[in-house]
């Protein structure tokens, strides 16, 4: 894929963040969707914006394209001030929305052609750009098929291709695999991974822990409109959940007892339905292990442990 450059893009010294949000607030009536958000995404990084529904991820995405206007704070995208210079920023970024908004009445190729026009790909490069996007999404053989007749996975791939038809420097992926079956999700992960390999900056909102772990170089955990933790998945897991976790299953009384013992020893726990997980299991002294009981099952700690510990909320 080829990179599109806006003629009037300000000169960047290579150190400026691809995305920068400072103290951004967005309210909808009495509800504060984004609450003093500070976030920087360096160029060439795939940042996973992780959080449950309602955390403010989609609103943040919309503010980056000026489809939502911040009430407070400053936003810069690829060196352009948003919303004042958002049109220039939108010319050099691609957006893959959560909602499928392809034109069902048009073919896959026609959808891409329309967006190649809208993204102002020059006439001489347009056909090649559309061909490249179709190839990237493995849809060359389906280019003349109406979108209405494509499978869910193909439509999703086309949606991604549409956001890439102008070879943007930055791609916003809003819940790229939500509602898809595991096989299609894996296919899309391959596609997104290809973007990272090309050095495209990616901001990907997701509430799938596994997706963030697989794709993101860096993660920002959002809750109630702000970032509550930031780092690579492995660093976050090591810092907040340790290397291993012990899961105890049993009746509610037993789980409450495990929680009491672990918390009494200064350990963090997370309750998920029929189990209690004791984090940083590698730090549990043998005497405490005896007290907790032999029924614990050890497993590797993951981002979900981090998230639940930090927010008390669950993600998928």
């Amino acid at each position, binding site marked *: 894929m*080829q*990179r*599109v*450059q*806006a*003629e*009037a*893009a300000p000169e960047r010294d290579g150190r400026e963040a691809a995305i920068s949000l400072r103290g951004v607030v*967005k309210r*909808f009536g009495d509800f504060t969707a984004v609450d003093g958000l500070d976030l920087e995404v360096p160029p060439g990084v795939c940042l996973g914006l992780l959080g449950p529904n309602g955390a403010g991820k989609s*609103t943040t995405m*919309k503010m980056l*394209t*000026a*489809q*939502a*206007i911040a009430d407070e704070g400053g936003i810069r995208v690829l060196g352009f001030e948003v919303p*004042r*210079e958002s*049109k*220039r920023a*939108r*010319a*050099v970024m691609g*957006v893959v*929305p959560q*909602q499928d*908004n*392809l*034109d*069902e*009445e*048009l073919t896959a190729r*026609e959808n891409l*052609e*329309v*967006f190649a*026009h*809208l*993204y*102002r*790909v*020059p*006439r001489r*490069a347009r056909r090649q*750009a559309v061909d490249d996007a179709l190839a990237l999404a493995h849809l060359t053989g389906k280019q003349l098929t109406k979108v209405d007749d494509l499978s869910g996975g193909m439509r999703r791939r086309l949606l991604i291709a*549409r956001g890439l038809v*102008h*070879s943007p420097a930055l791609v916003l992926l809003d819940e790229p695999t939500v509602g898809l079956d595991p096989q299609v999700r894996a296919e899309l992960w391959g596609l997104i991974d290809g973007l990272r390999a090309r050095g495209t900056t990616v901001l990907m909102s997701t509430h799938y822990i596994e997706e963030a772990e697989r794709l993101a170089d860096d993660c920002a955990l959002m809750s109630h409109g702000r970032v509550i933790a930031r780092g690579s998945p492995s660093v976050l897991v090591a810092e907040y959940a340790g290397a291993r976790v012990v899961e105890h299953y049993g009746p509610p009384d037993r789980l409450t007892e495990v929680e009491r013992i672990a918390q009494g020893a200064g350990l963090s726990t997370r309750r998920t339905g029929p189990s209690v997980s004791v984090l940083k299991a590698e730090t549990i002294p043998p005497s405490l292990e005896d007290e907790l009981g032999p029924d614990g099952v050890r497993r590797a700690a993951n981002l979900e442990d981090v998230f639940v510990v930090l927010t008390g909320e669950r993600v998928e």
Partner: protein
Amino acid sequence: MSVQVERAPRLRRFEFAPVRGIWRHELALYKRYWKSQSFASMVEPTFFLLAFGYGFGSMIAVIGDYRYLDFVATGVVGVAALFTSVFPGMFNGYIRRVFQHTYDAMLATPVDVHELVTAEALWIAAKSAVYSCTPLVVALFFGLDPSWGMLLVPIVTFFTALGFGLFGTWTSSVVPSINSFDYVITGVVTPLFLIAGTFFPVEALPGWAQTVSYFNPLYHCVELVRDAVFGLDPLADLGHLGALVLFAALMWTIAVRGMRKRLID
């Protein structure tokens, strides 16, 4: 290799590049649906013309200096301009915004709301300008005398359709549901074409209704079409054209404002 964009987007200005992109979208859809669109847009006014022209025409031979069929033919041009613009403005605007989310996708590209609204309205107006001439062509086969002024009719219908298309877009941005269009159609669109001098002269209406009709853009369209076909009255016609341009400008302002309110949080 690096691909340059055609031109860096200009800030806060109206640009033609987004308009071209949106027209490309319209053209792709039109290529698929031109037959059904053309059928509906051309046959419906023809039915009006034949039904009123022959139905009433058998009872009313002339109105003023015109044969009734000629009077109706020129009036139906206005009705066609109204129908072929206000309905696409309303329904396309609503469906693309609420159900298909097409506008959300477009606004994520270097397209601003005012360019989106303008491009779609221009497309609607261009199509309507052509389709609205159908009654005149049909009437030619039924004895309407051809005149050079007829060539001005597409210009008149273009401005009329531009205003009504934008009116449709504006209503699509203010109605709470698609069913609310029933109120607009029955309460606004139908009275508009009944008090515009389309099927009978406005002079036949009560005084208050005549006054209302002067504020009806369709009245100015119909008057202009009649003058274009039967003989221009330059001063009065400039006034009619001014009314249509003013209407379009007003509708553009509220349509852009309404859509911006709906599309930008």
